[in-house]
């Protein structure tokens, strides 16, 4: 039966994270963007919230909430509202834990999950995006070939978060049956972390190029076992992108709305001019629209329904609308929006990232 109301538990989570996002993440949004780094203290503070350990089942040492893409989407919107770059850093270990919980065998979970349930931040990551203009997660250039009882992976990746400190890499590579995912320990021969990427936005998140030069892993490292497709993770990643985009859009909208109510022109607040008010009302409508599309796709994932089309549509819609909303938010501030004293230019740069950053299977 159709229902648009989160559960009490989800509501509580939203409230907790909204407060953390507003009070702890947001004040760091600008400094972290300028410094290209997330402060250690913030990483530690967030760990206590269980953003990662909540994904690890109790039998593997975590807090064991069952995975819900919908709950993940709610969480991501609240956190991304504070800062997209910081959020993606804090949630980077989920790039490993969520796929393990979603598709991993019991043995794989037992081997790789416990380290993410400790009392300090342990980085995990995923290598999906490739440096090509028409990057396609379902048709990867990185190849995994079977060699006896091993897989050998060859390829070039980019935008790999926290690659220098990650203990585990989930490497997406094309197999005979489509995209697969492989668990690769840091330090495996042939796994070379290259230079840090310099990006227009989402600067707080450190991402790296990665070369896979004949990386050899045992067959047991293929996520989910023989012939398991990574498609469900790609769908989850798109839901995550959409949900994060809602958070960024809402951040820009709120910023522009508050500014418009303060700023006066011709004797009244500019928000009282329809030209401005209608920009804001359009933003509000589109934010709700993209949130509902993201929720629906997440709900399909949780129900085990086919979600590839819906997740992709939700992601495309959210990426387009968020960019436009951030652009309009900046426009509401006029010249002030262009100045780095205000956050809207940061939101705009971050929003454009949804065109390039993909594969965030963190919900």
């Amino acid at each position, binding site marked *: 039966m159709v229902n648009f109301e989160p559960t009490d538990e989800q509501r509580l989570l939203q409230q907790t994270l909204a407060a953390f996002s507003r009070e702890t993440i947001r004040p760091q949004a600008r400094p972290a963007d300028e410094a290209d780094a997330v402060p250690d203290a913030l990483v530690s503070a967030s760990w206590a919230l269980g953003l990662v350990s909540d994904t690890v089942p109790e039998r593997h040492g975590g807090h064991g909430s069952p995975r819900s893409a919908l709950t993940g989407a709610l969480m991501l919107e609240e956190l991304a509202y504070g800062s997209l770059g910081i959020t993606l850093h804090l949630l980077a270990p989920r790039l490993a834990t969520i796929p393990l919980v979603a598709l991993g065998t019991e043995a794989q979970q037992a081997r790789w999950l416990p380290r993410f349930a400790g009392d300090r931040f342990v980085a995990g990551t995923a290598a999906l995006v490739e440096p090509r203009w028409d990057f396609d997660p379902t048709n990867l250039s990185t190849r995994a070939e079977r060699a006896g009882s091993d897989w050998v992976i060859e390829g070039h990746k980019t935008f790999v978060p926290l690659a220098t400190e990650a203990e585990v890499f989930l490497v997406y590579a094309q197999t005979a049956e489509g995209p697969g995912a492989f668990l690769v320990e840091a330090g495996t021969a042939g796994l070379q972390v290259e230079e840090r990427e310099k990006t227009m936005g989402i600067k707080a998140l450190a991402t790296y190029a990665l070369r896979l030069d004949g990386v050899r892993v045992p067959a047991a490292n293929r996520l989910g076992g023989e012939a398991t497709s990574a498609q469900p993770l790609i769908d989850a990643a798109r839901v995550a992108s959409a949900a994060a985009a809602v958070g960024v859009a809402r951040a820009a909208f709120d910023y522009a709305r508050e500014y418009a109510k303060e700023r006066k022109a011709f004797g009244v607040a500019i*928000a009282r001019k329809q030209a401005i008010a209608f920009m804001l009302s359009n933003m509000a409508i589109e934010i709700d629209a993209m949130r509902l599309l993201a929720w629906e796709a997440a709900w399909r994932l949780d129900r085990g329904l086919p979600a590839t089309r819906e997740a992709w549509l939700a992601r495309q819609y959210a990426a387009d609308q968020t960019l436009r909303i951030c652009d309009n938010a900046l426009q509401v501030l006029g010249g002030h929006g262009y100045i780095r004293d205000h956050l809207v230019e940061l939101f705009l740069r971050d929003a454009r990232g949804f065109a390039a950053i993909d594969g965030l299977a963190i919900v």
Partner: protein
Amino acid sequence: MIDFELSEAIQQTRRMTHMVAEQMMRPISREYDEREHEKPMEFLETMWNVSKGATMTGGDGGEGERARRDPAERTLGMVVAVEELCWGDVGLYLSIPNPGLGGAAVAAAGTPEQKQRFLARFKEGKPKWGAMAITEPHCGSDTSAITTTAVRDGDHWVLNGTKIFCTSGLMAAEKSDGFVVVWATLDRSAGRAGIRAFVVDAGTPGMHVTKVESKLGIRASDTATIVFEDCRIPLDNILGSPEVKKTSHGFKGAMATFDATRPIVAASAIGVARAALDFVKATLEEQGIAVRYGAPPQRLTALERDVIDMEAQVQAARLLVWRAAWMIDRGLHNNLEASMAKAKAGLVVTQVTQKAVELLGPLGYSRRYLLEKWMRDAKISDIYEGTQQINQLIVARRILGYSSEELR
């Protein structure tokens, strides 16, 4: 818990209404677009017989199928059904005999006695229509500028003024035993606070239909000009209190009708948009053109991008409509969400149908197919029941916390 699955009962309603749309509406769709000002009586009588008794918002259900549905999801069921019927033909849907917008006003603002007196007739006898008369030649969205007057004279109200754009106005005022809900002012100096709605029974002396409009679309539906000349109605035909106070409470009560009807009108827009989208997709399939969902956006053709965008827009609008309807069923105040849904759906159907005609070129423009008709039908969704702009204004006031004085 967030859930997007329609209940079994609503799914059944959807199947049933889709069948009506496909088998009864589509076959006569073109005919009654061309034969403007004529009514498909056989279809209308069939619809009357199956749906007797349901008001537009289900506020005072009769024996009809819709009223038997679980009240916990009555409005949601209604928007799903309306989408299907308007996928069939929105002009024909608007012509279906029922209490219409006038009925929605009675259901929202009437006393139990008034509901009985005006709505019970829709449970029996011959087909009847209800209509709403708000717009005047010189005022539309600005309802506070209404000039039609209601003056008390003994046991009667005397109405004088001219109303235009009354959907089903001809059928409600002159061609059935229906009624027209008329918005008039008790005291012009009181502005909004003086506005009330009055129910005028069909055939009341002094009420005349003077014109039935010829329109771009929804031609199967009659849009009437109704003139009131010393039209006398009983005192207890007023909806709400006759006292004019400083507050605009009565006016707000009447405006609240729109919170209930906007999701329904928005749902009708979704139906038309989906009709156009389905037609485009079927044509592409016939031509062996597959839309590559999930492919890198940079690799998509312009055509694929357009189709995908249309699809996402329609689904986004549909979910906004569902949410606004769900809120009514939950008893939640949905003024903001109803306006969001209406603003979005009206725009989406306009853009989607116009794009669909563009994509199919000569096939889109030809009257051999229904697509050009849907484009013409669509545009009204962006206008009636509150234009795109007035809904934007309502949304803007709500999100900014401004009164209608602060944001004009």
